C-alpha cells in the first residue's frame, strides 16, 4: 500500500492506495501515531483503496478516537468492496463515510 500526505494548514489528507492488509496496517498505524499533531481535520481519501483487513479497521478506529479529541475525520470515495467490510463490522456507524 502507498500512503501519500498532503497538509494544508490544519487539514491533513492521507491518500491510501492499494491493499490495507495486516502488513500495510503496521505502516498506516505509525503514520497515525506520528503525524496527527496539530491536525484538526483528517481526510482519508480511499479512491484507490482496494482492500481492507481487520487490522486496517483497527487503525481507522484508533484514528477516529484520536480525531474525536482534536477535530474530525472523514473517509472519502470508499469503493464497494471496502464499504462491504465497513458495513459488515458496523464500522459505518463509527466512522464518517462520505460518498
Amino acid at each position, binding site marked *: 500500500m502507498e500512503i501519500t500526505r498532503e497538509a494544508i494548514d490544519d487539514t491533513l489528507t492521507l491518500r491510501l492506495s492499494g491493499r490495507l*492488509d*495486516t*502488513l500495510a496496517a503496521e505502516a498506516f498505524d505509525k503514520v497515525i501515531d506520528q503525524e496527527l499533531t496539530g491536525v484538526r481535520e483528517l481526510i482519508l481519501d480511499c479512491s484507490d483503496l482496494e*482492500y481492507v*483487513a*481487520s*487490522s486496517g*479497521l*483497527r487503525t481507522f*478506529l484508533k484514528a*477516529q*478516537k484520536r480525531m*474525536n479529541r482534536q477535530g474530525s475525520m472523514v473517509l472519502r470515495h470508499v469503493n*464497494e*468492496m471496502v464499504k*462491504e*467490510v465497513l458495513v*459488515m*463490522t*458496523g464500522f459505518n*456507524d*463509527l466512522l464518517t463515510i462520505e460518498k
Partner: protein
Amino acid sequence: MADVLCLDAVLKNLPAVMAFVDAPLAELQCSPKVKNNIELSAEEIFVNIVQYAYPSGEGTVVVERWVETAPPTLWLTFRDHGTPYDPLQHPTPDLEAKLEERPIGGLGIYLVRSLVDEVRYEYLDGQNVLTIKKHII
C-alpha cells in the same frame, strides 16, 4: 487432490499465502467480490495463527487448497501445531458498541464467518485444523 503450502508462521509470509489462495481463482472465473472475500478470510485466519498460535515465537502453518468444479467451490484448510484454540468459540463482537467501548478482539474471525459459506474447526493429532468453504460465483 489438494495442493499444499507449508511455511513459517510469520507475517512476512502473508503475500505467499495470498498468492497460493488466489492461484486457482482466475480459471474458475471468480468474481472480484468473491475473490476479495476469500483473500480476506484467508488473511484473517493466517494472521490469527501468526499472532496467537505460537507464544514461543516459532512454528509453521500448512495451508491446503482444493477445488470442486460442480458447483465451483474452493476449500482451504489451515493447520498449525500451536496452542489449541477454537476461534469459533470466540464470542461475536458487539457490533453496536459505541466507539470508546468498541472491542478490538474477535473482528477477524467474525469477518471469516460472515464471508464464507462454511467454517469448521477441529483439533486433530495435536493440530488446530480450520477449514473454510466458499462457493465461487
